């Protein structure tokens, strides 16, 4: 890590700026291609006529050309103003700040759950290639990735909430009838822990299980596959043979020597999976009434509410860029041969 210079990080961040600019412009133009006219849609309370629609259009600045609107948007963006949502009536920055922790908490929970299953499965499969356990691993992982996330979610709700009653109702992130902890991070697991609010912590954790499992099912396959492949390669490596020849215990060989080397490509895959999950949890949030940024963007898109969709895409793209950077840094930390300078 010592060789990772500040210059490298800065350079990467600067290089990402054109990408983010491209994302902003593309989203902006795409939203204006939507066939709906926000003014016509929102000015339709009872007794609203053409004059009221026109007035709202002017108020929203939609009577200007797209180029003008873009310039105004970019100018506002420079001051940290992402516009206002028509659906929630709030500034987009506040909406996103309120909702991002919910999405991130769910994504991380799903990701950790996936790792917890995928790593052992991958290692197990790699130690016994072409055995029954190997094939079984493959079938399990592939089944998970073959289910649409909304189907997985609905099935889990149906079985564990509706039929068995083991899971809490999939309608909120916490128990409304228990005392709530003050908001510090927006990660309810952390907030309740800091507060020592054990009962609510349990409720929060219980509500996280099904949506996280839904997301994990989708992520197990790529992680397990990559773990298996790189473990297999590592186990055939010279250093493993040497270590074995030296009489080290099989467990030590497996977990210390092979795993450490096998982790390098897995870390890259983790970065990809994690950033993909963050963008792909839209449907999971919808199914579980999870108040994250994905369901926010989806509702806004259907309502032709431009600002929230633009804000959402920008945030996800920024996270994508940061994650890639982090993966590179972790890569350097895991593999001493990689230097970043």
């Amino acid at each position: 890590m010592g060789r990772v210079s500040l210059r490298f990080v800065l350079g990467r961040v600067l290089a990402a700026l054109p990408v983010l600019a491209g994302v902003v412009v593309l989203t902006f133009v795409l939203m204006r291609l939507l066939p709906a006219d926000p003014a016509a849609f929102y000015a339709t309370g009872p007794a609203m006529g053409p004059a009221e629609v026109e007035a709202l259009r002017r108020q929203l600045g939609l009577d200007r050309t797209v180029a003008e609107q873009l310039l105004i948007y970019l100018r506002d963006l420079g001051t940290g103003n992402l516009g206002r949502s028509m659906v929630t009536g709030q500034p987009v920055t506040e909406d996103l700040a309120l909702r991002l922790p919910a999405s991130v908490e769910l994504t991380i929970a799903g990701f950790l759950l996936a790792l917890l299953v995928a790593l052992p499965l991958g290692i197990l499969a790699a130690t016994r290639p072409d055995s029954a356990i190997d094939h079984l691993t493959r079938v399990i992982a592939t089944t998970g990735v073959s289910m649409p996330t909304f189907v997985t979610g609905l099935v889990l709700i149906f079985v564990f909430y509706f039929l068995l009653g083991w899971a809490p109702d999939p309608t909120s992130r916490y128990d409304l009838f228990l005392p709530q902890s003050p908001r510090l991070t927006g990660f309810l697991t952390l907030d309740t822990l800091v507060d020592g609010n054990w009962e609510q912590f349990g409720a929060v954790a219980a509500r996280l299980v099904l949506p996280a499992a839904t997301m994990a099912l989708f992520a197990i396959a790529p992680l397990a596959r990559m773990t298996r492949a790189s473990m297999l390669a590592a186990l055939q490596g010279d250093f493993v043979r040497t270590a074995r020849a030296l009489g080290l215990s099989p467990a030590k060989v497996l977990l210390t020597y092979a795993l450490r080397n096998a982790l390098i490509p897995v870390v890259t895959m983790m970065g990809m999976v994690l950033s993909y999950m963050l963008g792909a949890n839209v449907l999971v949030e919808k199914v579980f009434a999870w108040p994250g940024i994905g369901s926010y963007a989806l509702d806004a898109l259907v309502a032709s509410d431009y600002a929230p969709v633009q804000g959402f895409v920008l945030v996800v793209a920024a996270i994508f860029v940061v994650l890639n950077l982090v993966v590179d840094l972790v890569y350097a930390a895991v593999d001493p041969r990689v230097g970043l300078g």
Partner: protein
Amino acid sequence: MSGATLRHIRHVVATNPVTLAAVLLFAAILLAALLGARLAPLDPLQTDVARALRPPSAVNWFGTDHLGRDVFSRTLVATRLDLLIAVSAVSLSFVAGCAVGALTGYFGGLADRVVGRLVDVLMAFPLFVLAMAMVAALGNTVANIIYATAIINLPFYIRFARAEVNLRRAAGYVLSARLAGASDGRILARVLVPNIMPVMVVQMSLNMGWAILNAAGLSFIGMGVKPPTPEWGIMVAQGASHVTSGHWWVALFPGLALVVTVFAFNLLGDGLRDIVDPRRRT
């Protein structure tokens, strides 16, 4: 195909029963796609409200839906459309991605950098939302669903093709072709592209499943193909609201068809990877 390759394929299939199963499954799905409309025992569009939500029976093997339509016939007939969406979308992104990726990877230069940046932009996008926005903007026709799916797959193919071509442009067989007087175009078309093809085909197979899931996701939020066309994603999404009332068959059977198809594509992709490149075996 050489004898060695055939032997290798036989070896892979023999040591990997799962791949064999996937091949058989895939053949069955293909058959359903080709003959589905003819094999369907009942008209998949014919409604009969008086016979709505009947459980599976000798007449309606998979029961009937909320309009009394035969779920079995609809599931069977939908195979062609779902495969069509997946195959067209993936082929489109494959062809376009290969062409762009191979050209930029081979020639490099300004075009390479510009395309590289565009690909970066696309990759940073939350892909599902991009597909949704495109379908919402262009209209929810089958063609637009295919285009949207193709575009969100495009960056992977461009990157992949570019990297593979870039890696091989200095390879021995390329140099020898050049020495033999082959033009750049000829080298690309005759030497490089065929060489990266196997790896790309594996990627295609894995992507097919993903394309079907993507289309199903669009259906779930109401941006799928237009009614009354049978399509698995829509059938599952609409059938889901009947599950709690005990009419599980409306969603279950199309859901199974969808999952089994994606499953077959994924396993097939894995198997193909073993055949194409044993070292990459995962």
